């Protein structure tokens, strides 16, 4: 494929992005000014970077739009290896670029499962050769994601696995989980865990409650999530391992996370954009594009998720991008595949919370940039001298309609089909190089 590679940018003129509203959630910076890119890094930024001040640079007038660090998406299913009919690293990266996402962390629940050093290496090489954005693989924390035997966490980490995860299943065996947390701690590795008690969630296909009862569908109680989260937190207390709840979906989980943080435990959590903007009622007449894990919950739970982002108790917003073809979705609800694509709609949907006045812009962007960077110990996710020039220019007020057929993702299973969003990425740069321009 002919996509430009991002890592081997040749020596070229510096780029000055001027007349921008610079927002750096890490430092709290929010001011008009400019930013200078030399090679693949941010060389300088501030009020003094303006149109006339730099002789050599290629000047881009940002027209007062928001210039922020590129989004870091901690949960993306990118299809490779084995599920290339749904997505590839190349198509996922194009979708990411179009959504202002400059770094994606891909899930290990592929075919085969990423539980071996050679597969981590495969992802990194495929990403280098085909992807427009930075890609970091998460590796499986148990072999084959079976929840039985620990993977080679040390070797996988050395090979480039950025974190460890068990796909979209929980490790039910508490002893295995304890050992993984304890062992990972020695390598400073982050454990990212999906939360669903496999027995309580067994038959369920949507949130338990009145809506499921009316539809005649089996429910997953919120307790399936909170029991697992409570258990994990006791194990973090026991081991001191760094723990990140991949996605929480209900109010009680938020309370549990708050308590754990007050205790000073190394616990963080994420929420998907779907659980911030949709609820169980959106399923309506069995719409399978709204079927996901964890299931969409009640409106009260959705509000709790928004409050959690606003208060900072929820650290990270993810797209939970999970491409699924018609063969998985055009089925009766209970038999349909879980998951929704989200890379391209993540920012626009997240901006709903800002436009509604529910979350400050800087707080919202922090959950999309600086916080995931901190958890993953990445240099990006901030506007600072010598940080990678992974940037997104955001037009806050552009209205647009999500048209599935125009999505870059190979799969079109978006729950935002036909949704009106306000605000989007208009220019995305990775390592100083434009990878997406809305005007094109």
């Amino acid at each position, binding site marked *: 494929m002919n996509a430009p590679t991002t890592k081997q940018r040749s020596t070229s003129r510096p780029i000055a992005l001027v007349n921008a509203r610079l927002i750096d959630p890490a430092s709290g910076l929010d001011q008009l000014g400019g930013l200078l890119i030399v090679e693949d890094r941010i060389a300088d930024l501030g009020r003094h970077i303006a149109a006339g001040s730099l002789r050599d640079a290629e000047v881009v007038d940002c027209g007062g739009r928001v210039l922020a660090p590129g989004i870091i998406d901690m949960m993306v299913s990118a299809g490779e290896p084995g599920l290339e009919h749904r997505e590839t690293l190349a198509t996922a990266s194009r979708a990411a670029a179009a959504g202002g996402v400059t770094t994606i962390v891909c899930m290990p629940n592929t075919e085969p499962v990423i539980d071996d050093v050679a597969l981590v290496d495969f992802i990194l090489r495929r990403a280098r050769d085909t992807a427009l954005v930075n890609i970091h693989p998460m590796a499986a924390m148990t072999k084959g994601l079976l929840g039985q035997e620990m993977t080679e966490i040390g070797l996988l980490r050395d090979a480039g696995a950025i974190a460890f995860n068990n796909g979209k299943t929980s490790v039910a065996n508490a002893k295995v989980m304890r050992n993984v947390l304890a062992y990972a701690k020695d390598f400073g590795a982050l454990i990212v865990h999906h939360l669903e008690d496999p027995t309580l969630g067994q038959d369920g296909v949507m949130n*338990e*409650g*009145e*809506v*499921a*009862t*009316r*539809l*005649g*569908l*089996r*429910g997953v*109680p919120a307790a399936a999530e909170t029991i697992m989260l409570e258990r994990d937190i006791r194990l973090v207390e026991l081991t001191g391992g760094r723990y990140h709840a991949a996605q929480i979906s209900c109010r009680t989980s938020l309370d549990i996370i708050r308590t754990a943080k007050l205790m000073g435990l190394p616990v963080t959590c994420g929420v998907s954009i779907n659980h911030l903007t949709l609820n169980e009622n959106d399923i309506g*007449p*069995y719409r399978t594009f709204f079927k996901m894990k964890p299931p969409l919950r009640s409106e009260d739970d959705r509000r709790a998720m928004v409050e959690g982002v606003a208060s900072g108790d929820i650290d990270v917003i993810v797209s939970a991008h999970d491409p699924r073809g018609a*063969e998985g979705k*055009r*089925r*009766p*609800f*209970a*038999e349909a595949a879980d998951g929704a694509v989200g890379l391209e709609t993540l920012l626009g949907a997240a901006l709903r919370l800002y436009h509604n006045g529910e979350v400050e812009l800087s707080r919202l962007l922090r959950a999309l940039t600086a916080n995931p960077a901190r958890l993953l110990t990445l240099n990006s996710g901030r506007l600072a001298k010598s940080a990678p020039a992974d940037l997104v220019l955001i037009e806050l007020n552009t209205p647009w309609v999500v048209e599935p057929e125009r999505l870059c993702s190979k799969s079109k299973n978006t729950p935002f089909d036909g949704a009106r969003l306000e605000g989007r990425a208009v220019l995305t740069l990775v390592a100083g190089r434009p990878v997406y321009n809305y005007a094109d």
Partner: protein
Amino acid sequence: MSIAAEASNFSFPHRHLLGIEGLSRAEITGLLDLSEEATKLSRQIDKKRDDLRGRTLINLFFEASTRTQSSFELAGKRLGADVMNMSVSNSSVQKGETLIDTAVTLNAMRPDLLVVRHHAAGAVQLLSQKVDCSVINAGDGSHEHPTQALLDALTIRRHKGHIEGLVVAICGDILHSRVARSNILLLNALGARVRVVAPSTLLASGIERLGVEVYTSMWEGLVDADIVMMLRLQRERMASSLVPSQREYFHFFGLDYEKLARAKPDALVMHPGPMNRGVEIDSNVADDPQSVIREQVEMGVAVRMAVLQALARHLPNQ
């Protein structure tokens, strides 16, 4: 031959019958009135009409059924339709054909009416979006079974003269029952007072918000009931630890004379079938004069004839 004009001319604007949800009180009453006419017809020597002459009705059953399938078959034949029964075994599902592929294939055979039962909630609605004919839900997972609720209502109305104000106790496996859901919707629409009676493990979450009173004791739930409607308890429920044993279930939730004595003296005993005698209902109670279980089966044919007639009005004539 023509049926009573007022019964045949009620307004029924729907192309499909996917559930009781979405039907108005007038539409339900209209279907029941039409069913009364069909009952008369079915009791004559000559049971044939030609409302559906030249029409093709396909019974598409993804789940085994004797009474519902044969009842639709008879209803179709009495109205003059050509009826084809298709039982889609699990093996052909395992061959990988999806529900939608099956629907598209059948649609190409140009049926006029499609009667569908499927083990997944919402499957019949999904299928109805992919075909050109009228679709009737003969049971989709734990969601709805509208013709069962209609035949239950017809049976009740014939005995009590009305439905409004009656106390109806629906007892047993509410969690898994499509019959319970359709009956709750229909009986509420017609103004009955609906109770559900079951152990907490067999009650669906949030069921009280469907407009029912919830009881976990038969002795309390049956007090002054006009109608006692029993549901089938499948044996798998014991294996999945929803109830501990058959004998414990029968002791607390099986309908015997002692529990039935709590209901009104003229209470009707109903069961959608097939019955598990000695599990949810005492064999003698099932055969008692208070039991209208066999009449429910007769009303099943009548109601299905009425539904077919109502939907046939919207079939294209060219």
